[in-house]
């Protein structure tokens, strides 16, 4: 695992994530959101889970980011976040970060390097998906159908008033 690549990807991902959480203009935040997910997909590639990285790029950069941009354009009236930020929330986030960092740094079992692994092929993922994980797969299919129908019902206009 290349440490130079790790540092570059970490800086890119965290800077893009911070920008997407703090920028005032919504459209800029949405583009930074897409960049964040490219960075996370790069982490997955670095960790040897190429398939998950590709799925991440397809689903987030290809679909969710475009969906967010569409929603921003459909709610055009306030494309800037004019409300004052809630500083109490920032304090809570920093406190949670401190707690997590303390727990991670206090655990000596996490000081391990990556073991050698045989590459995880898409064939193996497909095999496991069709044997051990076939019920979760069906449930996710049902969930996605329900989400599709639910989203359509939510945004459908009431026609009977006119």
């Amino acid at each position, binding site marked *: 695992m290349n440490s130079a690549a790790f540092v570059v990807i970490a800086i890119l991902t965290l800077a893009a994530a911070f920008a997407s959480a703090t920028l005032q203009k919504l459209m800029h935040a949405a583009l930074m959101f897409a960049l964040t997910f490219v960075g996370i997909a790069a982490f997955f590639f670095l960790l040897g889970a190429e398939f998950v990285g590709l799925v991440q790029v397809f689903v*987030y950069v290809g679909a969710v980011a475009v*969906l967010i941009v*569409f*929603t921003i354009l459909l709610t055009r009236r306030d494309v800037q976040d004019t409300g004052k930020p809630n500083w109490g929330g920032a304090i809570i986030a920093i406190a*949670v970060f401190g707690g997590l960092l303390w727990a*991670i740094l206090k655990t000596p079992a996490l000081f391990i390097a990556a073991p050698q692994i045989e590459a*995880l092929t898409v064939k193996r993922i497909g095999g496991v998906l069709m044997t051990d994980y076939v019920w979760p797969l069906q449930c996710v299919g049902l969930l996605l159908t329900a*989400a599709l129908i639910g989203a*359509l019902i*939510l945004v459908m206009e009431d026609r009977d008033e006119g």
Partner: protein
Amino acid sequence: MTPTLQLFLVISATLFCIGLLAVLSRRHAIFILIGIELMLAAANLNFIAFWRFGPQPQPPTGVMIAIFSIAIAAAEAVVGLAMVIAVYRHYRTTNVDQFDQLKG
């Protein structure tokens, strides 16, 4: 020096807290959804990192959970954004402080 598991967990914790910051401090509904997506992605990064650093050989459980989690996060984003549009039609705003009709 190659990156250890600890470094990945620190990155993931930072990402989670940036998402938490967006959820708790912003007033705009779309920013809150962006924050939730960032937190879910941080959890996925943890799953993949623990799978990669765990004892080998092992079944690809972490990878499987990450794939299902991505699918569920996509469904959540679709319904969330549809709700933002539906609420915007009703209130003509996306500022969550003004959604106070149910407030006692």
